[in-house]
């Protein structure tokens, strides 16, 4: 589960891209179909989320998400839905094989996103789009572990973050920057434990999750994320270990997830432009 301190794929240029029309398909979308992924925008229970729903639908977030995930060979039908949860969260429900994305989570991101680009270079678009994509990908991680019976030795919440961070890095520098920054910012804006008991949470602390994302990114793309090390956002002692951490995740992905990915479809997905430049500002 994505707690507010912790957060869930995709696609999503929602707020910043408000008013933007769906990205023109560079490939025929017919080729990116997967009958095992079923999407649903559930009507909100809260009036103010009507607007959130309208924005998601206008940007065709779930439709694009389904295309993005189309290379997965899933043995079960995975349901992905947006809905009201009465909490800013996102979660995977094993009994339904379903990913549930709460309208409130997107509204929370809208709330914490800086009005103006911060001194460290976080844009409003980074936080809303990247934060949302992180929430979706994190829950996708839980879904994949469950549906594909993936062996998970470590803490599953961290493992789901690793899936999310790893996928973010496979679509070129711009997608990587926006999504990693957005995820990192959402954790930087959340609290670390204030009591000892809070360390019993199955999620890592916000601080751990913030550094985990930056570390995976720097480990995978040292040139693209060196600035985080240079300005001390990712401390040197941890940075030195990040290439090993990235390789660990890459190997785990190759061994446990990649056998379930259609390689030809994956190439098409990777060749496509998922985020438009004006969405990440």
């Amino acid at each position, binding site marked *: 589960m994505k707690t507010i301190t912790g957060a869930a794929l995709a696609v999503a240029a929602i707020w910043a891209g408000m008013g933007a029309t769906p990205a023109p398909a560079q490939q025929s979308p017919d080729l990116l179909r997967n009958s095992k992924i079923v999407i649903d925008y559930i009507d909100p229970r809260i009036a103010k989320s009507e607007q959130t729903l309208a924005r998601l639908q206008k940007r065709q977030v779930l439709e694009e998400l389904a295309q993005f995930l189309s290379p997965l060979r899933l043995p079960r039908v995975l349901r992905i839905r947006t809905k009201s949860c009465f909490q800013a969260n996102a979660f995977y429900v094993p009994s339904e094989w379903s990913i549930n994305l709460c309208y409130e989570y997107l509204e929370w991101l809208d709330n914490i996103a800086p009005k103006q680009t911060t001194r460290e270079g976080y844009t409003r678009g980074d936080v809303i789009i990247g934060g949302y994509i992180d929430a979706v990908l994190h829950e996708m991680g839980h879904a994949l572990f469950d549906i594909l019976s993936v062996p998970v*030795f470590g803490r*599953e919440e961290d*493992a789901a973050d690793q899936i999310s961070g790893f996928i973010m890095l496979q679509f070129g520098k711009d997608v990587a920057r926006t999504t990693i920054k957005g995820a990192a910012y959402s954790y930087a804006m959340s609290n670390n434990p204030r009591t000892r008991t809070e360390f019993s949470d199955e999620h890592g602390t916000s601080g751990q999750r*913030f550094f985990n994302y930056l570390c995976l990114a720097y480990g995978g793309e040292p040139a693209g994320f060196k600035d985080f090390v240079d300005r001390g956002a990712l401390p040197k002692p941890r940075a030195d270990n990040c290439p090993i951490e990235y390789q660990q995740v890459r190997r785990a992905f190759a061994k446990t997830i990649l056998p379930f990915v259609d390689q030809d479809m994956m190439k098409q997905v990777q060749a496509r432009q998922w985020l438009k430049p004006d969405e990440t500002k």
Partner: protein
Amino acid sequence: MKCIVSAAACMLAVTLGMHATPAAAQLGPERPLGSPNTQTPPNIQVLPNSQVEVAYVEPGNAGFRPIYDKLKRRQVLEQLRVFLSPLRLPRKLLVKIDQCGAVTSPYKPGGPVTICYEYIDQIERLAPAEAPPGSPPREVMVVGAFVQAVLHETARAVFDVLEVPVWGRESDAADKLAAFIMMQFGKDVALRTFVGTAWFFEASERTWTGNDFSDVASPEAQRFYNYLCMAYGGDPATFKFVVDNNLLPARRAQRCAGEYQEVRYAFLKTIMPNVDQNLMKQVQAMEVLKSDDGR
């Protein structure tokens, strides 16, 4: 009862006292990885794992000399070689006790496994010489914490040598594998090792803020709860007291059976194919911890 070390350690000690009986009598009926051959005498000769090499490196710091002498006399690493005998390793692995210049020397791909004198020294210094009433016996603290350290570092080497896919932070994964192993030798071994481990993480706990959270290792409090969760998840009857006494919050406790099963599945899927089942039963039937260990 006056609890000196901490409330948690106190409760653990009380329960340990309730359960502690000779090790051999404790091989319970529930055994996730198959029953040990109870016909096997506890002192059976199991040959050491020939792929595991061990070394006690003489410490430069004279202060560590007593630790060096004791471990060597107790043949701790030789016992580890026997303990690891069921594991089919495709290449040699060196396990050594060495002076590191730091408390830990985390495993790097290729090895070796290093247990630092500094770490053992920290355990010995934190454990009171005379266990005050209410805290676990010093022997349980020292042995449990030491076994945790050895299993944790060895787990990382096993991931590397067997090319096990590791999801999650590697050091947490090593803790979970270590905890899983600690659960496979009956109640008495589980109680002693988990009590010692939990005591150590509590006694060595420091305050974490800001950039502390960038550490590859996890906060002691997190590790404390991870271990207790594995214990409770694997054997709820024996470890019910950790929930009853709120050492493990109920909210986390309800997920622990699932967490244990997740690790068990990962073990069966990735490591078990490299384990000799017959040798494992023999090792499970051995007296892996003796009551005077740690003295």
